[in-house]
Structure formats: structure tokens, C-alpha cells
């Protein structure tokens, strides 16, 4: 319109002089009017425009993104639909935002290439970064879960929980989830946590083994007490081990009987002494994949081998291990003899022997058929001493209270002797490779019996395998020792290695080497008065007394004969004299 006016005015000066001011007046006077009217006319339109701004501004975006036909392919060939449901978006708290408020790298001139992201996850992470433009760290950290996640580099993207275009408060949908699913919202993510010492642990929970476990029907919070929809305490563990100790405490809520049994075990004793390597529930049973009892009663599933590898290897080659491998369900596994929870060690030999005889009920009767004093043999000789051939053997001397018929423990000795016990221990330990002397054993027994208690202490000998791992390589019956001569001679290997084993109340042994001579020393009349193996532990002093006595017995007749020979001329003269006298008579 303005172009036309200027065009006409240019045709003549008169026209320009007259019409110019006229149109200028019109322009000056009417323009505000026109503008005002236009504005008045447009007002209702503006009111509507505020609401439809996105759609209007997004017109270009939505021309493509309202279609369900388009998808995006990432570098890793993952596909993702690019459809945006505008109706959904309009119902969200973000409805007032324009597309480019979040997708800041996108404009009509710039639209990132289809393959600019490696993967869907990378895209989502990048897209989620936009949330932080408005939602500050301070705002996020007000909630513990957010606080935890905001410190993570590998935390899940915001949209995992809150959605993207249909953004919601997580409670809007999380509260509709089951308890376990609620936890898994985060814990199905590949989350990790760094512990005090720098160790990393995974917080990822694979729901399928958990479901397949004996605890499949349990809620997470049954074990993870203190955690709920409203509470997620932050726990700071210094290392993986101390975390296991805390987590394993949960088991006793249901398995109190097992927990109490464990308290009797050597494992618990070790833990209470500060040995962090000793196992807790989860070391044997796992965390979320707790299997049924049968799982731990198979060669492949038995947890003991994790730590006791050497023993397990020997067991596997034993008659028991081989039978187990062949599928004999009755064949014993570790727990059959050592017990699963109240784990005992072999020093409590009576229990172990009971374990052997528990299955081999006929053993005593069978031994009686061929072995003289079978009961005696069974009480002084460990089963494995004969039934584990080709093993190192030895005599183990243990303090024993004859009054109670029980081992005299280190604790008892320490209580009885007080500081003197420490002195003895120190002296024993300082022997090094030399081994204890017989008078030292005698001294120990004498001191223990002189204290005026009811205990009647002596060393009791036991024939055993010297290496406890070797005790597990039990062989077939036909390979067991049957010849008396294997033991009943001082040449036997048994009597070349002597150990003094101090038994602790929990059954652990403290071994000290002793000289083999202690078995046949005069002092052993007192210190080892109840240990005597025919033909093997004879008193050496008696050998010398014997030689002297037999020599004395022989020499008397010999000396007498010699005297008689020497004096025979006297008798001869006397006889002749007598004969002469008789002749004269």
C-alpha cells in the first residue's frame, strides 16, 4: 500500500506537494488508530496464542515428530521412535516449555544428524542433561536417592524414572509398583558404589536368580531392614568384608537356630578374634542367589572348597569323594563330619570319630574280628592313621585330664598356671627346630598336677596323620593298614615324629615339635604314663638294666664254674686223702 502511494506522488511535483502532507497527516493521525484497532482486533487472538504458542512454535518440529512412522537409528544400530505425543506433553508440568528449551542443540537450522549418538542410552543421557539446566543440584540433593545419584557418573538418566515428554513425579508411578519392583527401579540399573578403601561394589540386582532362590518370595525389605519406600539410609562401609559382616546379620532374623549353631563354630571364633577371612553366612550361601540345602551338598556346590582347597582336592580323590562323584547320596561331604554351621575341627577327635562311626556303625565289630584290643586301637589311633595310606604319620601328645576323661585345654592350663604358663609357652616356642625334651614334658605335667586342683593331668599319645589335609584322603578298605608291624616297632614312621598339641577349648591345636626320644625316656614314666605302644615306645633305660641283669645272671654260674675248676685240685687231693684214710682203715 505504501509503495503504491509513493509511486503516484512521484508522478508530479504538485501531487507530491499536496498529497504528501495530506498523506503524512493521515499517516501520523491514523496510524496509531489503525494500530490500536489492529491491536484491539488482535487481543482475543493473542490470548489464544499464548496457549497455542508451543504448538505454533513446534509446528516445524511436530511436522515430523507427530508422526509415528519415523524412527532414529543410532551408531550401534539401535532404533528409537521419534514420535512425540503432543497431547501428553500438554498435560505435563513442562507444557509451557518449547521444544528447544530442552533440545537446545536443535533449531530450524541445526538438527543433529541421525547417527550423532552411539546408542540410545547415550542419547538419553545427553537428553537428560537438559533437566539439570533448571533442576539444580541443591534441589536434587534434598532427596537421598537423588543425592546419591547426582554424585554418580554412571547413575541412571532422569528420564528413566521421570519419563521424557510425559514427565511425571516418580511417586505418580512408583507407588503403583510392587515393593520389590520399587527397589529394582534403581537396582536393576548398573549402579556401583565405591567403598572407603576404594573397592567398588555393584548395586545391580539381577531379579531372576533372586526369584529362583529359596528367598524368591521374599520382599527386599525382609532382609534389608531399615529400607522402605520412605527410607533409604546411606551406609558407609570401609570395605567389602565389613559390608558382608553387616549384611549377614540379617539372616539371623529368620535363621536364629543356624545363627546360634554358627556361634559354636570355629569360624565364628576366628571372626571374634578379628580374623576377617573367616566366613559369614553370605560367603557360603551367596547374597541373592541362596540355594536350597541340596545345593551345598554337591561336589560342585559345596562352599568349603573356596577356602579349604587343599583339603577338598584330597577329599575328592578319597573313597568318599569318589563315591560322591558317582552319585552315592550317602557318601559324606565336608559337613557330614565337620557339621555345616557349628563347624568343628578334627582336634575334637571324639566328635570326628563319632562322625566316622556314625556311618560305619559296624566298624567296631568288624575291627574286633581281626584286630586284638580293637576298642583300644580305635581310641588311640585315628581312623585316618590306618585308612589314609601313604601319608605322613606321627605321634601327637595331648594334655588330658584323667579325672574328667577329657582333653586338658590350653585355657585350663593358662588359668591354672597363670603367668607361669606364658613362661612355659615362651620356652617351648624358643626351641625352634630342636623340639621339646622329655624333662620339659615332665616338668609341665608336674606343674599342672602340683597346683592342688582336681585335675589329674597327663599326656596322652595318639597316632595320627601329621598333615590334617592328608587325613582326608581316605582310601579303600583293601588299602588300609593291616600289618601290626607298621606300628609296633620303634622303626615305624609314627615314632619318628612327635608333636605336642595344645588343645584349645574350641578344638584348635597349637603344635610344638618334641624330640622322638621323649617316648622312651625315664621321664615318660610320669609324663606319658598312659601312652605305651608295644614294641615301639619301650623305656631305653630298661634295655640297659636288662643287659646288666642278664649278664649278672649268667656271670654267677660262670664265675662259680671257674672257681670250681680252679679249686678242683683241692677237692681231688681231699678225695685222695680220704680214700687213703679209708684204705688205711
Amino acid at each position, binding site marked *: 500500500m505504501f509503495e503504491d502511494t509513493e509511486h503516484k506522488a512521484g508522478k508530479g511535483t504538485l501531487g507530491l506537494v499536496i498529497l504528501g502532507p495530506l498523506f503524512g497527516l493521515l499517516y501520523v493521525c491514523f496510524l496509531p488508530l489503525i494500530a490500536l484497532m489492529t491491536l484491539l482486533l488482535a487481543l482475543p487472538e493473542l490470548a489464544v496464542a499464548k496457549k497455542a504458542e508451543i504448538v505454533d512454535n513446534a509446528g516445524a518440529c511436530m511436522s515430523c515428530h507427530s508422526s509415528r512412522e519415523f524412527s532414529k537409528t543410532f551408531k550401534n544400530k539401535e532404533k528409537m521412535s521419534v514420535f512425540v505425543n503432543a497431547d501428553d506433553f500438554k498435560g505435563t508440568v513442562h507444557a509451557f516449555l518449547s521444544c528447544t528449551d530442552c533440545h537446545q542443540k536443535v533449531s530450524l537450522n541445526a538438527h543433529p544428524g541421525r547417527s550423532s549418538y552411539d546408542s540410545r542410552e547415550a542419547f538419553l543421557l545427553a537428553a537428560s542433561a537438559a533437566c539439570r539446566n533448571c533442576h539444580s543440584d541443591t534441589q536434587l540433593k534434598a532427596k537421598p536417592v537423588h543425592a546419591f545419584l547426582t554424585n554418580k557418573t554412571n547413575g541412571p538418566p532422569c528420564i528413566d524414572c521421570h519419563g521424557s515428554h510425559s514427565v511425571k513425579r516418580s511417586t505418580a508411578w512408583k507407588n503403583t509398583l510392587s515393593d520389590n519392583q520399587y527397589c529394582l527401579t534403581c537396582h536393576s540399573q548398573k549402579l556401583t558404589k565405591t567403598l572407603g578403601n576404594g573397592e567398588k561394589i555393584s548395586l545391580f540386582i539381577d531379579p531372576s536368580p533372586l526369584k529362583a532362590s529359596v528367598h524368591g518370595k521374599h520382599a527386599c525389605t525382609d532382609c534389608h531392614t531399615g529400607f522402605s519406600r520412605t527410607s533409604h539410609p546411606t551406609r558407609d562401609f570401609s570395605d567389602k568384608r565389613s559390608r558382608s559382616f553387616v549384611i549377614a546379620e540379617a539372616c539371623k532374623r529368620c535363621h536364629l537356630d543356624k545363627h546360634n549353631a554358627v556361634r559354636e563354630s570355629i569360624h565364628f571364633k576366628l571372626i571374634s578374634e578379628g580374623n576377617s577371612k573367616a566366613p559369614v553366612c553370605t560367603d557360603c550361601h551367596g547374597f541373592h542367589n541362596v540355594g536350597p540345602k541340596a545345593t551345598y551338598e554337591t561336589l560342585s556346590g559345596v562352599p568349603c572348597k573356596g577356602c579349604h582347597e587343599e583339603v577338598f582336592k584330597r577329599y575328592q580323590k578319597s573313597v568318599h569323594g569318589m563315591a560322591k562323584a558317582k552319585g552315592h547320596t550317602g557318601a559324606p561331604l565336608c559337613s557330614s563330619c565337620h557339621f555345616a554351621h557349628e563347624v568343628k575341627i578334627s582336634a575334637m577327635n571324639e566328635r570326628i570319630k563319632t562322625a566316622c562311626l556314625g556311618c560305619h556303625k559296624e566298624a567296631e565289630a568288624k575291627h574286633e574280628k581281626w584286630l*586284638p*584290643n580293637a*576298642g*583300644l586301637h580305635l*581310641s588311640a589311633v585315628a581312623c585316618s592313621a590306618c585308612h589314609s595310606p601313604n601319608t605322613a604319620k606321627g605321634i601327637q601328645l595331648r594334655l588330658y585330664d*584323667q579325672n574328667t576323661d577329657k582333653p586338658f585345654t590350653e585355657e585350663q592350663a593358662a588359668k591354672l598356671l597363670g603367668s607361669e604358663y606364658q613362661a612355659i609357652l615362651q620356652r617351648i616356642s624358643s626351641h625352634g627346630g630342636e623340639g621339646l625334651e622329655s624333662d620339659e614334658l615332665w616338668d609341665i605335667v608336674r606343674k599342672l598336677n602340683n597346683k592342688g586342683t582336681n585335675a589329674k593331668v*597327663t599326656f596322652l599319645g595318639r597316632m595320627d596323620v601329621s598333615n590334617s589335609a592328608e587325613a582326608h584322603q581316605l582310601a579303600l578298605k583293601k588299602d588300609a593298614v593291616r600289618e*601290626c*608291624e607298621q606300628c*609296633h*616297632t*620303634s*622303626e615305624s614312621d609314627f615314632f619318628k615324629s612327635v608333636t605336642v598339641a595344645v588343645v584349645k577349648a574350641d578344638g584348635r591345636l597349637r603344635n610344638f615339635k618334641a624330640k622322638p626320644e621323649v617316648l622312651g625316656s625315664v621321664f*615318660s*614314666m*610320669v609324663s*606319658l*604314663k*598312659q*601312652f*605305651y605302644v*608295644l*614294641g*615301639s615306645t*619301650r*623305656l631305653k633305660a*630298661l634295655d640297659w*638294666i*636288662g643287659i646288666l*641283669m*642278664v649278664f*649278672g*645272671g*649268667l656271670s*654267677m*654260674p660262670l664265675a*662259680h*664254674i671257674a*672257681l*670250681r675248676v680252679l*679249686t678242683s685240685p*683241692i*677237692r681231688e687231693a*681231699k*678225695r685222695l686223702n680220704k680214700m687213703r684214710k679209708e684204705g688205711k682203715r
Partner: protein
Amino acid sequence: MKKIYLHPLPIRIWHWINAVSFIVLFVTGLQIRYRDMLSLMKFRDAVDLHNIVGFILIFNFFIWLVYYIFSGRIRIYIPPLSVKKFITGCIRQARYYGYGILLGEENPHHSTPENKFNPMQQMAYLAIMVILIPMQLVSGLFLWDIKQFAGPINLAGGLKVVDSVHVVLFLFFLSFIFVHIYLATLGHTATAHIKAMFTGYEEIPEGHGR
């Protein structure tokens, strides 16, 4: 030459069972104790034989005990009640063995069924039959089954004490046997006493005896 019936049949049987048993027990005992030096038989056989013969010896001891108590002849083991008589008798006998015999003197003791042993024999055999043999039998019995006899073994001072008693007595009997056999050859002939132990009759040369 006159003959006196010195050894009644039960005593001869007892004596020779004793003699054979002692030898078997000596041999098997040595085999059990010195397995590392001796290999006469298997350990197991040695133990079995030792046990069997040990029980024979226990039974045999009762033959002796029953015979002597019920026949009243146990008196021959009992030294004279007068100490003076006993001591002079011992000195006289010791003087004979150490001196008189060398000079061809006559044995001051003349055995009769009622007074079979000289005072030294009485002393030795009384100790042997009443103390040492029972001790050996009892200690052997204990060692035969130390589990069953755990109580008495403990009372005696432990297994090693009982075993040592058994061994020391064994050594004593072994040395005693040498002297015993030698003294048995000191009759009027070397075999006179030995023969008598078979036949029961001791030959007394003329001119001997009271």
C-alpha cells in the same frame, strides 16, 4: 644208693609246664619288645602266643597253689620261724656254695619231702611264688587288656609303670633261670636233680644224709 620221693606228680607237671611256658614267654616277650632287632615270628603271632601261654601260666600257678595248700606242704616254703635259726641256716648254705663246695664239703642241707628247700631256697622261692610270680601274672593280665583294667592300671601308677614292672620281672626271671639251671646241676651228679624232676625220686648216695 637210696631214693626218696621228693617231687610228687602234680608238682612235676607244674614244674615242666612252668619251664616250657617260661621259655615260650621269654622268646615271644623279646620278640614283642624288640621287633626292630628280632624277626623270629610275626608280631601278631608273638602276641597271640604270649597271651595264650600267659593264661596257661596263670592256670598253672593255681595248680601249684591248690596242691600245696590242700596237701599242707606249703610249709616247705616257709622259713624257720626262729630268726636266729633262719640266719644261721642261710649263712651255712651261703658258706657252702661260696666255699664248702669248692673244698668238696658235703651240702649242709639234705632234702626230704618235708624239708625240701634249704633256707636260701626257701627265701628265694617264697618271694618268687608269693610275690614275684603273682605280680608278673597280674601285670601281664592287665597289659592283656588295658582298657578293661584301666582302673587298676591307674592305681598302679599308669601303663608305663605296669609295663616296666612286667619287664623288670621278666628280666629277673631270665637271669634267675641261668642260676636255677646251674644250681640244678650241683647234685651228686650233674643230672641228678634234673632226673629227679622227671621221675620224682632223688637219689641219695650212700653215706649222705643224716
